[in-house]
């Protein structure tokens, strides 16, 4: 089967800084992959590259069958990115925001309502302007936008940050549900305990290259970075675990 994400020596720039300095990565359909690594390792840029936001300047990059070196536009509507920014309009209400982005992605109004319901944003909260929401509520609205767009590939950058325990469980539930219904998920997280329960496989990125990959419980996560396995083709490809 063709992988959903297929990167070979992919280089991406942030301005003139090579945030990705040659990444090799394969992710199969239905997988949930945990992306970990120190600050500045390139996690966020990798997710933004996979979303088709950051150009790949050299190497191979195919996501959902789209060659990112040729065409990034047709990929983007099929991808959901939950980043540090909420991508919400402060002046609009929660419902306005979710409906606007859902309609832009050609999802139905029912998708928008269902997404708001799933994140507890129905009722009184949906008519509140985003500027007046708390950080956690904004975060939930942002997740609702992503769910409402019904993406095939979920890219989550620190999805648990700023959420309380209950909301974290909701997010985990949504991710599992998405993966079981065929979507693919890549999660970058510092909250390794929680994320490892979720993920079937862990990929470590250091200094803009993949430094190791393995089944979630096997990787020496909190160890000294110098003990991490070196990047090479064999480790990047091995141990693909599917989540039921």
């Amino acid at each position, binding site marked *: 089967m063709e992988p959903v994400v297929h990167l070979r020596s992919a280089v991406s720039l942030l301005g003139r800084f090579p945030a990705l300095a040659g990444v090799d990565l394969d992710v199969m359909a239905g997988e949930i992959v945990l992306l970990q690594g120190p600050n500045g390792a390139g996690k966020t840029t990798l997710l933004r590259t996979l979303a088709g936001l950051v150009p790949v300047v050299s190497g191979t990059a195919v996501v959902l069958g789209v060659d990112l070196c040729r065409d990034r536009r047709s990929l983007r509507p099929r991808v959901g990115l939950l*980043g540090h920014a909420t991508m919400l309009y402060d002046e609009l209400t929660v419902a306005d925001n979710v409906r606007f982005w859902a309609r*832009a992605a050609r999802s139905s109004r029912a998708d928008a309502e269902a997404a708001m319901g799933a994140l507890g944003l129905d009722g009184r909260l949906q008519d509140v302007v985003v500027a007046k929401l708390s950080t956690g509520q904004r975060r939930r609205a942002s997740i609702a936008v992503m769910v409402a767009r019904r993406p095939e590939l979920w890219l989550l950058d620190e999805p648990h940050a700023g959420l309380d325990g209950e909301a974290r469980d909701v997010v985990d539930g949504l991710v599992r549900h998405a993966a079981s219904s065929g979507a693919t998920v890549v999660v970058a997280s510092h909250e390794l305990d929680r994320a490892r329960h979720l993920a079937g496989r862990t990929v470590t990125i250091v200094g803009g290259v993949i430094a190791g990959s393995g089944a979630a419980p096997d990787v020496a996560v909190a160890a000294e970075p110098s003990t991490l396995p070196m990047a090479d083709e064999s480790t990047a490809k091995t141990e693909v675990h599917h989540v039921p």
Partner: protein
Amino acid sequence: MFRDALLVAGKDLRIELRSRIGINQILPFALLVLLLFAFALDPDSGVLDRATPGLFWLAVLFSALLAIQRAFAIEAADGNRDGLRLSGLDPAGIYLGKMAAIFTQLAVLELVLGVGVLVLYSAHVTGWVLMIATCVAATAGIAAAGTLYGVVAAGLRVRETLLPLLLLPVLSPVLIGSVRAFEAARNGNPGEGWPWVGLLTVFAVAYTIFGAFGFGPLLEES
């Protein structure tokens, strides 16, 4: 494309209605400019009366700069530019939508300014048809060029200074054309004004077409 344009225009106008930046800040600014012109040019000497069409359009042009900055400031907030790029909206649709929203705001602004000019400068008006046609064509041109250069400058640290430098020279034909057409209408020979409306229309159409193609590549750059 037009579906996307409607969606974006609706969103932008809804934000303007909610935030009231246009009504609370840009409109007062335009009226302030009218007052300042009156201070600078002695109202009793007749200079103000003769200069009225030019002053009206200068006020519109300066306010348009603010409206265009504002239209892209709402996208600059919290990663919304990324949101637009990820959204799957057709870039030409986004361009037309933002242009339509700016057009609508400027049209309202011109209406209020027009009333302000009538009252404050006690101008008398003839040639309504020509004036309205001029307003529509000129505003479309300002919105079309403004949206295009607005996205060039958007997201840059130097945007506040770059946008006027890029946009105002480009809009100088619009200023000339609309002022001459207004003068022709006021002087009671609309025949002299219609060729200017033609020029304004050509400008607006050309910029709209080019903008619809050029917006996509420009939106890509962050």
